[in-house]
C-alpha cells in the first residue's frame, strides 16, 4: 500500500508535515477508512517502541570491562586529561597572583613602605632564598621523578607538552617574583607571593606524580 497519502502518514504521526500537507491529508482521512486504520497502526508502532523495556545482558560484562580499564592500562587516560587540567588550574591561580605581584613591585617605594606594618622584612636579610628554601629540595625531587617518567615513556607526549608548558609558566612567575624582591627585598607581600608560588608548584608536581603512579 503505497500512494501519496500513505507515504505521508509517518510524518503526520510525528507532526512533521507542512500546514498545507496536513490539511490536505486531514481532508483525505475524513473519507478514507483504510488510511485511518493505517494511521492508527503507525501510531501504535511508535507508542510500542517508546515503552520497549531495556534488558540487561544475560551475563555480567563488568569483569571484562574491569580488565580492560585496569591500572596500567588506564594510566594513560588519567594522565592525558587530569594532569593538564590540574596544571592549567594551578597556573591560572599563579598568573592571577603573579599579576598582583607585578603591580606591587611597580608601586612607589614610599607607598609600599606605608602599606604594611612598617614595611619590615619578614624573613631577614636574604628573603628570596628563605622563601624558596622549604620547597626547593622537594621540587627538585619531584621534577626528577617526572623527568624519569618522561624518559621511560610513562607519560604520553601530550601530557609531557602540557607539563613542560605549565611548569615554564610557573617558573616565569617565580622569576618575576625574584626580580620584584630584588628591587624591594623588604616587601612582606612579595616574599609571601614567592613562597606561595613555590608551594603551588610543589603541590602541582606532587599531584602530577601521584597521578602518574599506577593506582590500585
Amino acid at each position: 500500500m503505497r500512494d501519496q497519502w500513505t507515504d505521508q502518514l509517518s510524518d503526520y504521526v510525528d507532526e512533521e508535515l507542512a500546514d498545507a500537507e496536513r490539511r490536505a491529508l486531514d481532508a483525505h482521512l475524513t473519507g478514507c477508512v483504510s488510511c485511518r486504520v493505517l494511521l492508527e497502526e503507525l501510531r501504535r508502532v511508535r507508542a510500542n517502541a517508546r515503552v520497549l523495556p531495556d534488558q540487561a545482558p544475560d551475563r555480567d560484562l563488568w569483569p571484562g570491562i574491569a580488565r580492560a580499564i585496569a591500572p596500567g592500562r588506564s594510566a594513560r587516560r588519567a594522565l592525558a586529561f587530569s594532569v593538564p587540567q590540574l596544571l592549567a588550574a594551578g597556573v591560572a591561580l599563579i598568573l592571577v597572583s603573579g599579576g598582583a605581584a607585578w603591580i606591587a613591585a611597580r608601586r612607589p617605594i614610599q607607598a609600599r613602605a606605608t602599606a604594611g606594618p612598617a614595611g619590615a622584612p619578614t624573613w631577614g636579610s636574604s628573603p628570596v632564598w628563605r622563601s624558596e628554601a622549604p620547597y626547593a629540595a622537594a621540587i627538585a625531587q619531584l621534577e626528577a621523578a617526572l623527568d624519569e617518567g618522561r624518559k621511560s615513556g610513562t607519560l604520553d607526549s601530550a601530557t609531557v607538552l602540557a607539563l613542560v608548558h605549565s611548569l615554564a609558566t610557573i617558573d616565569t612567575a617565580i622569576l618575576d617574583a625574584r626580580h620584584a624582591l630584588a628591587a624591594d627585598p623588604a616587601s612582606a607581600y612579595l616574599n609571601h607571593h614567592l613562597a606561595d608560588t613555590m608551594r603551588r608548584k610543589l603541590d602541582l608536581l606532587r599531584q602530577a606524580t601521584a597521578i602518574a603512579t599506577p593506582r590500585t
Partner: protein
Amino acid sequence: MQPFGWVTYPSQRMIESAPGVGVATERGDRAAADAETADVALAASGDGRAFERLYRVHVGRIHSLARRMAGPEVADDLTQDVFVRAWHKLGTFRGEAAFGSWLYRLAVNLILAQRQTRNAEPVRYDAGAALETAQAGAVEPELALDFEEAIGRLPDGARQVFVLHDLAGYKHEEIAALLGIVPGTSKSQLHHARMALRGYLDR
C-alpha cells in the same frame, strides 16, 4: 553479591520518564542524580568502583541499544567497548548533558562506527529496502515473533533509523548526520520500518 561501595539509583531514563512524581520522589531522584554526578567525578579521577556503579545503572540501556542496532550476537562486545571507551573519554565529559545522555550518544557513535568496519556490505538506505526485506523475510504466524524480535528482522538501514528515531528520540536531521544520509531518506526509512512492524503489534 553487590560489590563493595554499591549504591542504588535509578537510571537517567527512569528519572527523565517519570512524569507527575511526588515531592518525595523528586527528592529521591535529585539525590540519585547527585550520587551519579559524584560517581562520574570519582570515575573521572580513576575510581573503578564508582565507574562500576555507573555501569550497573546504564548497562541495560546500552546493551539494548547495541542489540537493537547491531544484533544480539555482537551486543555484549559492543557494550563492553562502549564502557571501556567511556572510561577513557570521561575526562572530556563536561556535565553539560546528563551522563546517561552523554553515554548513550557515545554508544550510538561507536556502534555505527564499528558496524561500518565490521560489515563489508554497505547498508542500504534506498526507499524500498525495508519493505522488500521485510516482505521477503516475512515470518509465519506460528513463529510468533514479538515486536522486539521483529525490529531485529528489519534491514540494517531501516532498523538503525527506527531505533534512533522511535526508541532513542533522535531527530531526522541528527540521524541523517550520523548515518551520512539526507533527512528525507531518514523519514522514508522510518516510514517503511513502521509499516513493516505493524504486523507485530500485540505480540
